[in-house]
């Protein structure tokens, strides 16, 4: 054992060096690219921050231009996560712990396939199919639950609203959450699970005691990855949402997201408008960065309590 180790050490050391150099280089490259993106955004965005308030779109300065669309972005992402998280976790659990083996494989494959559909297809589906199906449900919501601010009428006659966009986004982030969670659930220590079952736990109790605590950090990272996609999604929202000023109601036409705002206005933008849109991109960049850092922090905090150790 020790002889073979020594014999391989001379070649192994150069291999080690090359590998560690390549790995470090790859890591550094990512930092450099990210830094370059940040610098580009900052430099290009600067004129929008320093421009006279009257010159900025809306005529009341950059802050009052960006705040409504940032809030709109967060609303859209929140709807998507509220819908997609429970479904995604449930789908993953079904595949990992409930479905028969052959069904699980096929289902897992189909879920992964969902993630491969281009967003413009989701957008076209949302705009031309989903929206027309939701006209009547929205009308019903406005008639019966209109006293809740988010369902305040009058319902949009095209149903191309924030809620529709949120649902489309939910479908788009679902495969991300489901496939990541599935991988994590499969890694839950089998001994713990067998022990739980041996102690007389039902299957759901076993999942609750031995799988979910172990997977908590992983579920959060899956959700955050999904959130990243929901925040940055452009084409689907641009196609589905009939945008407008910020409003609480999710079934009236209104609201806008940062990514869609950029996509819709970029082709004809020049001068200050271009700087504004890049500044909006910078804001989105910062939001995504913060969201991911918070997610990392949460995961690290939960690590100690997970069933793995």
């Amino acid at each position, binding site marked *: 054992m020790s002889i073979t180790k020594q014999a391989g050490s001379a070649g192994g050391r150069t291999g080690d060096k090359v590998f560690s150099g390549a790995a470090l280089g790859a890591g550094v490259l*990512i930092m450099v690219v990210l830094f370059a993106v940040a610098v580009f955004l900052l430099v290009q965005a600067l004129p929008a921050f320093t421009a006279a308030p009257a010159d900025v779109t809306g005529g009341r300065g950059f802050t009052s231009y960006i705040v409504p669309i940032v809030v709109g972005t967060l609303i859209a992402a929140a709807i998507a996560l509220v819908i997609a998280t429970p479904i995604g976790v449930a789908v993953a659990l079904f595949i990992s712990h409930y479905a028969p083996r052959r069904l699980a494989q096929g289902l897992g494959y189909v879920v992964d396939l969902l993630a491969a559909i281009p967003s413009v297809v989701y957008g076209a589906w949302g705009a031309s199919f989903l929206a027309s199906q939701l006209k009547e449900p929205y009308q019903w919501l406005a008639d019966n639950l209109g006293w809740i601010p988010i369902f305040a009428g009058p319902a949009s006659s*095209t149903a191309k609203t924030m809620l529709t966009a949120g649902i489309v986004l939910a479908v788009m982030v679902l495969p991300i959450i489901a496939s990541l969670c599935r991988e994590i659930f499969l890694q839950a220590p089998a001994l713990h699970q067998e022990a739980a079952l041996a102690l007389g736990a039902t299957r759901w109790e076993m999942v609750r005691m031995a799988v979910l605590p172990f997977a908590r950090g992983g579920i959060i990272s899956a959700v955050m990855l999904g959130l990243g996609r929901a925040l*940055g999604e452009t084409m689907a929202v641009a196609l589905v949402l009939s945008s407008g000023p910020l409003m609480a109601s999710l079934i009236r036409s209104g609201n806008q997201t940062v990514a869609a705002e950029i996509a819709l206005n970029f082709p004809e933008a020049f001068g200050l408008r271009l700087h504004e849109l890049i500044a909006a991109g910078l804001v989105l960049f910062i939001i995504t960065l913060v969201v991911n*850092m918070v997610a990392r922090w949460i995961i690290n905090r939960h690590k100690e309590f997970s069933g793995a150790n």
Partner: protein
Amino acid sequence: MKALHIGRVAAVVTVGALALTACGTDNVVGSGTTPAATTSGATVTGTLTGTGATSISAAMDAWKAGFESANTGANVQYSPEGSGAGRKALIAGAVQFAGSDAYLKDEELASAKAKCGPDGAMNIPWYISPIAVTFNVPGVKDLKLDAGTVAKIFRGEIKTWNDPAIATANPGAKLPDLAITAVHRSDNSGTTQNFTDYLNKAAASVWTDKASGDWPAALPGENAKGTSGVVKTVTETAGAIAYADDSAVTDALGKAELKVGDAYVAVTAEAAAKAVDSATVVPGRSANDLSLKLNRTPKDAGAYPAVLVSYAVVCQTYPDAATAALVKAFGTFAVGDAGQQASVAAAKSAPLSSTLAAKAKASFASIKVAK
């Protein structure tokens, strides 16, 4: 430990970058725009580079194909980056021509002198597209509207289809008690610019917003991306009305006749070209500049006022003979019969009238080589 820390930060950062790049497929940022004209005598060869309006993309593809097959050795590159970007690029000397839905403003004309020489640049119309007011009202195919009514509908002041203002102009139509859903463009567009200009001029008392490529944000109504998105939304929504490039409106939808003078005019290519003929050339510019002040309230019978005119923005003089010859030849081809027929076929535009085409040809012919 340190490496581990870097790794962690890098992971966070990667996820952020991934989230941002997930949407980066539709940026049409400029490719190479370096002038590469090569001198080779009297025949037109070389590369002509232009950028600008997205509205003429389809027509430009047709012109490019026709021009290049007639002049082997000539190559036209056009990147549709938007009218504003096109004008800016021409002024900066980055391209040899620009396509724009609006002519150069006076201050832009002045700054163009830096790269185009003392004579500056000029605007020549080469593409006309009528804008239809299209609607989806069950049982109603023909509708007569005056500008004031159209403006009130799009401002949300007329809310139902059986409103007296619509009913009095359409005595025969069976107008339902159906809510009106006004649909506009969610993206910045020359169509919106020209339509709001029409409303602003023809219904000044109702439409107080200035003409703009962005729809006034304060107004209610639904929107959709692009001409096709707007048409689709109208098709799927009973009671919807929208303005859209006439070429994209399907037969399933109705098109309103707009009131001009005392008569109502349907949207046709001829009516649009007629309205452009009644436009006056913006005064105080060089003799060859054909910047048109469109007449949104024409007096001639049969002129349709809601039209979009797109311009070729070119220099009056070019530093070398090859480029001048290329621009001259390409422009002349585009406004000529073959070019206009090609854009009618490809983009369903309205051809320039023979008088305007002759003027445009004369303007292109006036392009000179700088001394």
